[in-house]
Each structure stands twice: as structure tokens, then as C-alpha cells.
């Protein structure tokens, strides 16, 4: 089936016709009368309060839900939980999401330009049959499963891996293909694990390309507090709410953060502000790093980054002197072609500010354990699953060869290579795509190519509560419950409660049930013997999917030396990374300029995708109260640039890049860097991902360069 799918024009419900309605009219009349009587004497429904966890994002705020019968009427923060009553607007809109009239009610099967409602049995049987066909023709690895952010840390991801292995495909990709994992890799390559600052132990806190007010609002008071009780340094092209409070705000030109970090290292190394004892005893590669930093004097970097020389010097001294210093880095520095190396540069800069014997100021830093040397590095995922373990898969996932460091750290496929596998059969054909709670065609890089790829697929199945852009292009849409309707999983992902906050709506199933039943329809039921998610979670687990050849082990320690502190190859903090060197990359955090540089035709650096207060990426766009706060996307532009382009505040403008064009409203603000245009992502009406080069990815992680494109702003109608 290779002819392209026509756009969906109709949804045919399994419903009643006018004729059947008339047939049942007499009965209906009587019951309507009874209902009328009932309404007269109607009492208010009993209100019940249950405790639950909000799983719209990774914070997992504790919530108290108020239900009336089977309706969720109110959700508020639970003061008794670890999040102390915090709730953002997305969490507060939970009842609207659960009871939205936009929900998919029954499984939908495509029939030309129509979606027909079908029963679960029929949908699963038909999907299984077509998956079998794909498996027979192209092999099991031709199935890719992708999952999105709602599930990335959800325990269900483990079962998705299990499903893939049972089917025989290595290709499970999560949103980790373009979110957060570059940061995890950059830090782990340096100190051996991901970490985050422990706010109360840090004296100087640096927010680098992060805006917790919008992205992680629960901690914004802890960050804000640093401005008065310590030092707060913000590195961001936009003057964010926290930047306005900060001790120093470095308004860096997007994409030059690595150079800025190197210039600060230049100052710290040149003025000997680092602790020599710490550097000599706990780190490797200092000479190499010093030679690199030598090439980045602040005077030269100032022009590049547009941060004044004096400020670079001043902040570098502040970071080194006002220790302990820690950096909170965000996606702002990951979404570049030099993303991992930029994170490395920032982590190394932080390392230069450390003192020997200093109290650990970061959480989640590598735990040193016995048997450390027999194990793979601490930052690596150690998959485990319940018995019976499905037979191992010998085929390698997408990205295994081209982005080996990504695979080593994340043990999953690099989803950004999907279009290549579909359109060019590289490294092998992928012909079926199962999307669980993701909107890949809108959020992943290279939207146009993905759309082309979707048309070439033999089978596209989406599991989602809503009819997303991706769902509308699918062959089958399976309605999943929201987490509020599924059994509550506690914030630490361990305990599963008996029930959810409200019963499942319409004919939706919890995602685990969809997955288990699909496995059963495929004849893989022996690997999914559980009748509930709780039972599945409580089953004891054994390690699987080991890949000893690909997993680096630390060097054995010299006889009589102290146990290592860092989970790196050398056991030390790696200013020069051994693993990167092994895979042919620069060991020290070099800065490479983005390949696309502004010129006369495209004078602005294009930054897309910073989180806005409303929405989480492509989610919540159909939720009225969330949408009301940001009815349409807005591109931020500096007044100077707006004048040059001849556009006015509030006007609709076109953002034009060498790769595409979208239209949105213009917001003129002096808070944004004069060289940058900043636009939000996740809008179907204005998908900014088409503005970026579809295949220009970070060579280490495969991350897209969403924060360093180029563009110009055009008036829609010439005056």
C-alpha cells in the first residue's frame, strides 16, 4: 500500500441512524419523561477527593482531584506532597483535557479519506495482520516504535522496549532523540553522570540557556532566592523573568555559548583562579584544555558572542571566586550542531571552579559503588525486565553506527534517522511506525521529510487521546486514556494504585492495556501475561539487552590508588573525554560555529522552541483555558530589527528561512537579543521545524540545531 493517504475528511461514528432513532422513539420518550422527573428532584452529586500525581511533565506534582460521579471537576496542588501544593496552568487544566470533546472515542481505522470507528478487537486484529505482512516482507526491524514526552520517564517505556524485543525490532525511539539527552551525555562524558545543582548548597548559580519560570516552574523560587542569598548568573539571548532578577545577565548571541565558556576558562586559567590541587589530583586533560582555551581571549570572543569583554572577565572571576558554583543548563545550549560539546564546555567551566575537598553541590553525581570496574559506566542505562525475557535481537537500532555515543548512553534508536530509513532504506528499510503518545510529524526535526516518509509507510498507527496531526495521517488511531483515568502511578514510578482519579472516558484504554493487547493480537501474549499494570510492575526483573562490546568500561585503577570519584573511563573528571576521543571526536570541548550564518538575505539567527508559559510543546493546543493565555504563536524580535524590516508590533509576519516559511504574529520586545528572532514550537498552524535544515544534526548526539538557524522577517502585504 504505497499510494499516499488522502487527508481525513470524515469521521464515521458507530452510531444510530435516523431510522433506528425513530424505532426506539417510544421507549426513548418514556425514559426521557423519567429523566425529566429525575432532573426535578436532582440532588447535587457527591463530591469525592482523591490524591494523585500529575504526569503532564516530569515534575510529577502531587494533586488532589475532586470528582463528581464520573467527572473530574477540579484539580489542585497537594500541599502534603513533595511538590507542596505547586500546580501550573497545564496541570490545572486537567479536567478540560480529560473531558474534552476533542478526544478520540473509539479506535479509528482509515478507509480512504474517512476514519471509521471500529471495535478494539477489529482494530487490533487488523493492525496485527498488517504488522505481520511488514515483518514477512522487510523483517521485524522494519517496525519502529516512537514515544513522546508524556511517557519518556513513565515506567511504560520499559514495556515498550520489551514489546519491541518480543516483536524482534531494536527500534524504540523516545523524545530523547531531540530533548534533554544531549545534556545528559555532555555532563556524563565529563563527570560520569547527569547532575543538577542542589540549590541550598550552591553559592553561585548559573542558568545557562534555561528558563525554569516556563520550563520547570516549581523551582523558580529556589533560583530566584539565589539572587538575594548568593549570586545568580543568567546566560540567555532573552532577558527572561529570572534574568531580570540576576546578578549578571550575559545576553549571548545564540549558538556561541561554547566560545563564551572557553573565554571564561581563558580568564580562569590565565589568572590562575582554579584550584591546582583539585585539577592535578581529580582531573585529566588539563594541558590540552589550557591549550584550547588559550585560543579564546575574551577580547576576541566579545565580538562573536556580543557579550562585552569586561563582562566576560568579571563573570569568569565571579564564578571562580564565589564558589561553590554550579550550572543549570537547558535545551538552549543542546539544540545546536555543537550541542554536546557546548554542554561539555559548560560542565568543564564548572569543574574549573571547583575546590578540592569542597562539599558536593550537585545531586545525582556518580555514586561510587563496589564492583564499579566490572560494570559499564554509571551513566549508562541498565535495562531490566520481567521473566520470561524475549529472545535477544541481533539487528542494530537506527543510529547504532552513525551516532554510537548516543546509543551507548541511551540504549535506544535515534529517532531523527527515521526519514532516512523510510525514504532511502538507510541502514535498512523501516515500513511500519507505531507512535505512542507522540506527535512526531509536528515536533521532530525535518517535518517535511517526515511527512514524505509517513506517506511511504506501509502502516502508521498512533496511540493518543487526541486526533493530533500525526494521528490524522495514520492508518489507525487507538484512543488512549490520559493518566488521570489510568491507575495512578506514584511520583517515583514505583507504586501503582488500584484505580485512577476518574474512570476511563468513552472507549479509551490505558496505554499499557493497548500495548499488552496489541502484543496478544500479534501472538506475543506469553511475554505479556499480566492482567493489570500493577501486576506487570510488581513482577521481579532481570537484566537484559546487554551489549558488552559496545559498552565502555572504566580503566582499572592503579594499585594502591584511592577509589575513583567519577564514573568516566579514567575514573577522574575528564576535561578531555576519553570516550569522545575513542569515537573520533575532539576530546576537549571545542567550539564549532553553526554552519548556517546570518547573511544579507537571512540576517537573523533563528531560535525556535523555547518553552512558553502556556502549552508543553505541541500539547494542550486544544484546551480552551490554556489556549486562551496564548491564542496564537508569537515571534519575538528586537525593535531595531523590526524597524529595519518595516514591521510593527502585533502584525502578522512571515518568518522566511532557506528551508521554509511560516507565518505568525510579531511581538516586538527589547528583551530579546538584537541578532535573534525567537519563535515557539509545537503549533500546527505555524510549524517552525520546517525552517531548519532537516538533516543537519549534532555529530555526537544526532540532535537538531533548533536554536541556531537563520531567517528574515517579512511583511505579509507590502505597504
Amino acid at each position, binding site marked *: 500500500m504505497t499510494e499516499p493517504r488522502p487527508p481525513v475528511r470524515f469521521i464515521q461514528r458507530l452510531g444510530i441512524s*435516523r431510522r433506528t*432513532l*425513530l424505532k426506539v*422513539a417510544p421507549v*426513548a*420518550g418514556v425514559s*426521557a419523561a423519567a*429523566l*425529566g422527573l429525575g*432532573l426535578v428532584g*436532582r440532588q447535587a452529586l457527591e463530591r469525592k477527593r482523591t490524591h494523585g500525581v500529575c504526569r503532564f511533565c516530569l515534575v510529577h506534582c502531587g494533586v*488532589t482531584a*475532586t470528582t463528581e460521579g464520573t467527572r473530574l471537576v477540579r484539580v*489542585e*496542588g497537594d*500541599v502534603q506532597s513533595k*511538590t*507542596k*501544593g*505547586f*500546580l*501550573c*496552568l497545564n496541570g*490545572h487544566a486537567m479536567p*478540560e483535557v480529560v473531558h474534552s470533546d476533542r478526544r478520540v472515542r473509539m479506535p479509528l481505522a482509515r478507509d480512504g479519506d474517512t476514519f471509521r470507528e471500529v471495535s478494539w478487537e477489529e482494530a487490533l486484529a487488523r493492525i496485527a495482520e498488517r504488522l505481520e505482512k511488514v515483518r514477512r516482507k522487510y523483517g521485524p526491524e522494519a517496525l519502529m516504535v516512537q514515544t513522546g514526552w508524556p511517557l519518556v520517564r513513565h515506567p511504560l517505556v520499559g514495556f515498550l522496549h520489551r514489546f519491541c524485543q518480543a516483536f524482534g525490532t531494536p527500534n524504540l525511539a523516545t523524545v530523547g532523540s531531540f530533548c534533554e539527552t544531549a545534556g545528559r551525555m555532555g555532563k556524563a562524558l565529563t563527570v560520569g553522570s547527569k547532575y543538577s545543582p542542589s540549590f541550598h548548597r550552591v553559592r553561585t548559580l548559573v542558568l545557562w540557556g534555561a528558563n525554569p519560570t516556563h520550563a520547570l*516552574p*516549581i523551582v*523558580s*523560587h529556589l533560583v*530566584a*532566592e539565589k539572587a*538575594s*542569598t548568593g549570586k545568580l548568573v543568567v546566560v540567555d539571548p532573552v532577558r527572561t*523573568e529570572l534574568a531580570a532578577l540576576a546578578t549578571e545577565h550575559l545576553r549571548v548571541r545564540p549558538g556561541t555559548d561554547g566560545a563564551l565558556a572557553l573565554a571564561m576558562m581563558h580568564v580562569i586559567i590565565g589568572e590562575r583562579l582554579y584550584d591546582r590541587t583539585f585539577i592535578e589530583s581529580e582531573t585529566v586533560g588539563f594541558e590540552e584544555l589550557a591549550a584550547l582555551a588559550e585560543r579564546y581571549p575574551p577580547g576576541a570572543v566579545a565580538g562573536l558572542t556580543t557579550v562585552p569583554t569586561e563582562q566576560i572577565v568579571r563573570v569568569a572571576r565571579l564564578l571562580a571566586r564565589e564558589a561553590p558554583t554550579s550550572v543549570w543548563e537547558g535545551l538552549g545550549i543542546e539544540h545546536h550542531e555543537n550541542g554536546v560539546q557546548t554542554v561539555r564546555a559548560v560542565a568543564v567551566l564548572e569543574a574549573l571552579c571547583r575546590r578540592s575537598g569542597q562539599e558536593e553541590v550537585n545531586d545525582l553525581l556518580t555514586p561510587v559503588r563496589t564492583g564499579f570496574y566490572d560494570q559499564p559506566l554509571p551513566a549508562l542505562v541498565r535495562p531490566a525486565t520481567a521473566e520470561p525475557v524475549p529472545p535477544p535481537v541481533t539487528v542494530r537500532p537506527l543510529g547504532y553506527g552513525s551516532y554510537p555515543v548516543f546509543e551507548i548512553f541511551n540504549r535506544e534508536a535515534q529517532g531523527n534517522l527515521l526519514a532516512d530509513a523510510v525514504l532511502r532504506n538507510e541502514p535498512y528499510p523501516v515500513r511500519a511506525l507505531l507512535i505512542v503518545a507522540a506527535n512526531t510529524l509536528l515536533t521532530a526535526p525535518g517535518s517535511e521529510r517526515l511527512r514524505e516518509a509517513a506517506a511511504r509507510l506501509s502502516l502508521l498507527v498512533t496511540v493518543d487521546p487526541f486526533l493530533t496531526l500525526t494521528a490524522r495521517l495514520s492508518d489507525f488511531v487507538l484512543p488512549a486514556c490520559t493518566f488521570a483515568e489510568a491507575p495512578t502511578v506514584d511520583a517515583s514510578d514505583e507504586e501503582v494504585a488500584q484505580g485512577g482519579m476518574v474512570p476511563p472516558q468513552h472507549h479509551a484504554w490505558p496505554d499499557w492495556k493497548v500495548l499488552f493487547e496489541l502484543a496478544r493480537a500479534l501472538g506475543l501474549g506469553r511475554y505479556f501475561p499480566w492482567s493489570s499494570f500493577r501486576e506487570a510492575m510488581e513482577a521481579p526483573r532481570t537484566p537484559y539487552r546487554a551489549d558488552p562490546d559496545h559498552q565502555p568500561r572504566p580503566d582499572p585503577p592503579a594499585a594502591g590508588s584511592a577509589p575513583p570519584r567519577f564514573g568516566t573511563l579514567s575514573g577522574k573528571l575528564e576535561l578531555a573525554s576519553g570516550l569522545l576521543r575513542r569515537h573520533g571526536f575532539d576530546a576537549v570541548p571545542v567550539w564549532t560555529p553553526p554552519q548556517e550564518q546570518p547573511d544579507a538575505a537571512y540576517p537573523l539567527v533563528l531560535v525556535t522552541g523555547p518553552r512558553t*508559559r502556556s502549552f508543553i510543546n505541541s500539547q494542550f493546543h486544544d484546551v*480552551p*483555558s490554556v489556549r*486562551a*493565555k496564548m*491564542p496564537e504563536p508569537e515571534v519575538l524580535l528586537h525593535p531595531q530589527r523590526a524597524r529595519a524590516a518595516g514591521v510593527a508590533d*502585533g502584525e502578522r509576519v512571515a518568518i522566511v528561512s532557506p528551508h521554509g516559511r511560516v507565518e505568525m504574529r510579531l511581538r516586538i520586545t527589547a528583551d530579546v537579543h538584537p541578532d535573534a528572532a525567537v519563535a515557539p514550537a509545537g503549533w500546527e498552524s505555524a510549524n517552525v521545524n520546517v525552517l531548519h535544515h532537516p538533516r543537519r544534526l549534532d555529530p555526537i548526539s544526532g540532535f537538531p540545531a533548533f536554536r541556531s538557524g537563520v531567517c528574515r522577517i517579512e511583511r505579509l502585504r507590502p505597504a
Partner: protein
Amino acid sequence: MKRRHLLGALGAVAAAGVLPRRARASATALRPPGALPPGRFEEACIGCFRCAEVCPPKAIRFPATLSLEAVRPFIDARERACILCMKCTEVCPTGALVPVPAQPEAVAGTVRMGTPVLERRNCLPWNGRGVCRVCFYVCPYAGTAVELVGPRQAPLFHAEACVGCGLCEEACPDEARAIRIHPRERAGGAPG
């Protein structure tokens, strides 16, 4: 009886099922957005229910009464607040609700449903019992109508920038109930 009539009658029965729930306007009830000033609004409104019909969150309600006199719409923000979609002002046939374009700037410039009053004793960040901040996150004018101040990032309301939609009052947790939107009582002046 014709088939058409039967279908119509069935439709009417179905519609009766979704009528607004038994409700009583209290002293703290708000008028819908874009309403004429108190006094003139009551004169202009004919109680046609259209605003309540189009209201997406069903925030606009009517008092339940069997009298034949016209009843006026009200919003109990604590129960369900206005999301400022301005659909009600589009459908109002008498101009009791003055049409306002659903753009944040236009709404901020004209709509004044009430003024926010914060009881700091009850507010979780102010009294130190929690980190809540939900009022800031649900506010359509966060940063201007309410800002987060101090190391605890506690809310501070600015009545002059507030349109009085009541989303903060609705969202304020039951354990606190610290926010109350006081309806505009002043007669005369511009619509709000």
C-alpha cells in the same frame, strides 16, 4: 405527528437535560466580560441565555427561577471562571455585553469584571505552608496583573492591570481560598 416534529421534540427534551444546573447568584457573583456598568446592564439584558449557551467553560450561568421575569447572567468564579474568549459579547443581541475582540491587549484595555483581593494569611506562599503559585500560572496577564515577588515567589496582585476574570480565584486551592474577585459595584462609566 410528522417525523420532523417528533425529532424536534426529542431534541428539545435532550436540550432540557443540559440546561444550567440549579444556581443562585450570590453577592460576589461577577457580570460576564464586556458588561455595561451596573444598572445599565440590568436594563439592557433581556435574559436570552445566549451568552450561557456559547460559553465554552459554561462559566456564565443564570439563577434558577420559575418566575417569568428576565433573569441576568452571572459568573461564580469560584465554581468556574471566565476564560476571556469573548464569545458571549459576540452573541449578545442587545449590547448589554459590548463586543470586545478576543485579543489580550483589547481585553486588557476594556474588560473590568472585578478587582482581586488576596488574603495573605491564607495564601500558601505568603504563610509558608506551600509553594503553590497556581494563580500566577493561570492568570492571562501574569507578570502585569499578578507578579511573583521575593525569595518565596509569592503572588502580588495589581488591581489596575487585572481584568477580573477570576481564573485565579477558581484555581486557588481549597486549603487556601485566599483570592476573591470583588465585583465592580460602581455605577456609570465604561463597560467592563
